[in-house]
């Protein structure tokens, strides 16, 4: 089945088996291996990409469901020569070790800051009507869908706060 996708600003036409997940479409068919497969079950977040600006586990959705959708992967956020502020902060704060969960962490964190900006509360938000803060509990809660076995969590939190803070400047 043919599916038209707008990936990182480029129009791509995918012709793949209907059973192809969005993650496998990216990794096996479109040459975008930045999104990682850690579980294929929606349990680790390594495959996180942005669809129309919102974070999603690419392993939990079929590519053919996204005809016309705008998809941003880690490759679309920045390049090694021109890192996004979040990518730069992950490097500076050593927010990774093996790097395998990292593209998912960065896509997730990028969208998460938008969610905070939009005032979405989380499980740990004390006041549902106020703008959520960027303290370590809010970040920890909102980033808990992205597992890191290397356990760079404290550095991931620092990196996200740093990037958010730079953003506000």
């Amino acid at each position, binding site marked *: 089945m043919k599916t038209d996708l707008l990936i990182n600003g480029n129009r791509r036409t995918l012709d793949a088996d209907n059973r192809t997940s969005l993650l496998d479409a990216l990794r096996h068919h479109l040459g975008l291996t930045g999104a990682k497969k850690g579980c294929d079950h929606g349990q680790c977040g390594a495959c996180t990409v942005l669809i129309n600006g919102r974070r999603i586990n690419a392993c939990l959705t079929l590519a053919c469901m996204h005809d016309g959708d705008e998809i941003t992967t880690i490759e679309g956020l920045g390049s090694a020569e021109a890192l996004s502020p979040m990518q730069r902060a992950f490097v500076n704060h050593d927010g990774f070790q093996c790097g395998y969960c990292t593209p998912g962490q960065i896509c997730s964190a990028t969208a998460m800051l938008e969610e905070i900006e939009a005032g979405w509360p989380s499980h740990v938000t004390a006041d549902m009507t106020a703008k959520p803060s960027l303290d370590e509990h809010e970040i920890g809660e909102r980033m808990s869908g992205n*597992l890191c076995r290397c356990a760079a969590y404290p550095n991931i939190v620092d990196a996200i706060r740093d990037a958010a803070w730079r953003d506000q400047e």
Partner: protein
Amino acid sequence: MTRHMKMDNADTRRRLDDMVQGAVGAPLDRPDGPLKVTGAAHYAAEQPTDALCYGVLVRAPAAKGRLLNMSTNAVMALPGVLAIVSDERMLRNPAQGTANEAPVQGVHEIAYFGQPVALVVAETFEQARHAAQALQLHIETTDEAALDPLAVEPEIPEDKQSSMGDLDAAMKNAVYRVDETYTTPSHSSAPMEPHASIAQWEGEQLTLRGSYQMLKYNRNELADSLGIEPKNVRILAPYVGGGFGSKLGIAPEAVAAALAAKKLSRPVSVAMTRPHVFETTMRRSETRQRVRLAADAQGRLTGIGHETLVSNLPGERFAEPVTQATAFMYRGENRIIGQKIARLNRTCAGSVRAPGEAVGVTIVENAMDELAEQAGIDPVELRKRNIPEEDPTRQVPFSSHKLAEALDAGARGFGWEKRNAIPKQVRDGEWMIGMGMASAFRVNMLKEAQARVRLNANGTAEIESDQTDIGTGTYAILTQIACDMLGLAPENVTVRLGDTDLPPGSGSGGSFGAASNGTAVFLACEELRLQLATAAGCAEPDLTLKDGKAIVGNRQVIIAELLPSTALEATGHIEPGDASSKVRQATYGAYFAEVAVSAITGETRVRRMTGAFAAGRILNAKTARSQCLGGMVWGIGMALTEALEFDPRYGQIANHDFAEYHIPVNADVPQIDVILLEEHDDWANPLQAKGLGELGICGAGAAITNAIYNATGVRVRDYPATLDKILPGLET
């Protein structure tokens, strides 16, 4: 030109201290960072490959039996299916670390639930997955599987039992004594990148892109499994998405991919699924540990007993070395060390981050907490009183011993003096608050390694080794060593790793990667310095290299001007020697944790944690800290949530995914303080650096369970400390 060194004695030259570039020890960002944060680093299954087809492993759904046949014809008729490989050369389970030969092979004798029996290959992943699920296996299950470690008669290997003095008498005469049995469950390494391989043949030449830790061994293991010459095998693993021991030895997906690729004359990609990683790679054995401590009125130990029961598959030599550190942790002239091994039909047991100490030190540190409580001695003080003068078992000196400093620095940094020694005294609303501590111990090792360093005519340098960087920071620290030795800025040094065509490094395992490969690079650079000094007309010690310039006396020249028009090249080669037997080498540390336990649900939250560690010279302050953080977070997982649950009826791992096997998530981890102590261990290697990748987990869990006791008065001796084990104790 090769410079070779065998580590027979202490090297007191401390050459790195003479260097002026200032790279070693600095918190350099990982050179591989930009590629990793942009998704541009290609892991094993990601190399763009033409005509690639996909294989999915089919595994036995029984813990013991005999595979009679399978529905090959029906599955071959499915769309896209190219081959079904079921071959006696396929691996029963991965090779153990440094095995250097094939592990047990074969698909007909089923020894555990999840053993691979076939590989189904198709044009697309979706077709292969469907076909693999459709393959019907006919397995005869006549014999009863051995599933319960307590129900089988264990092996008692003679070389794993030892004793000194008379522990029974020491226990009888002791003023304070602990005699308790503790259990830890099986753990999974669970690296975020599942094991994966792409195999490709050109004639008789096999290239495998894999996710492996120790390539020089993996090459021989793969060749031996396939029955071909190692020279016909090349393995590439420039980026590895975590290993933690599970990728030490060649694994079933690599051999299956190679067999299928040969058969089809096409490249084949095989990636394990997450359940495959849990069931078909390695687990840390569950342990049962009886610990006896005998102490005098001052809390000084007179005896230690540590007897353990672990398990593994039939035919596996590895046995979790639970008592590895017990030999030298604390004083005590009367000792019994013992180990029994139950042969079970369970997923293969192998190395998982800090095999031995991760569970062994943790349990002894729980027993020490019980002793401190009984004797009314502060737990930190109790440990300090029991630091031995020399290795109490081997009666050799310590190369360096920083436990006391680590205890003091950690206690100070954490604010240990605020702890109330009486349990159940501190409340914060529904939360019961407690503090606990434990010491850290891990043996230190050096392994044979080679590395090549090339100084180019333009004044840049390249480092080459088959060593891997599994997240440990190899790219960074090798860069830094070369920068200091050759006076170069980091951007002028390139590191190439993870290719068996390059000189053989030590591999990543046992925390020996940085010291071993770092030394190989150091030696190669020493040789280059000698050649540069000759060209500059001075003695090597008189040569100062900085920022691409050579300074001799009051003369200063650009390094490139000293070079011949071609590159200058040297290989460094380090081998371990008698140093490891002349002295006891280890790394030390101390953990402090504050927990909050809900009085209503029994749930434990770690509120803060501090670790102080001594691991010789720190090569990169940033990546070293990250290694410690990672280890301590593993301690949180071990203490609170991680346990492989084996179905007692059929032997499969009931929680074979991340929804059910709970590794710590971001919200489970507080900010953690890491204190790295200054230490230079001349016996370790010419860098004076020691291993750090595992020290962070060698007792961390005990700091948490000891804190739970301080918070609640409940001693959990059966890991992990889930709320069902705490809650009943809160009600009384």
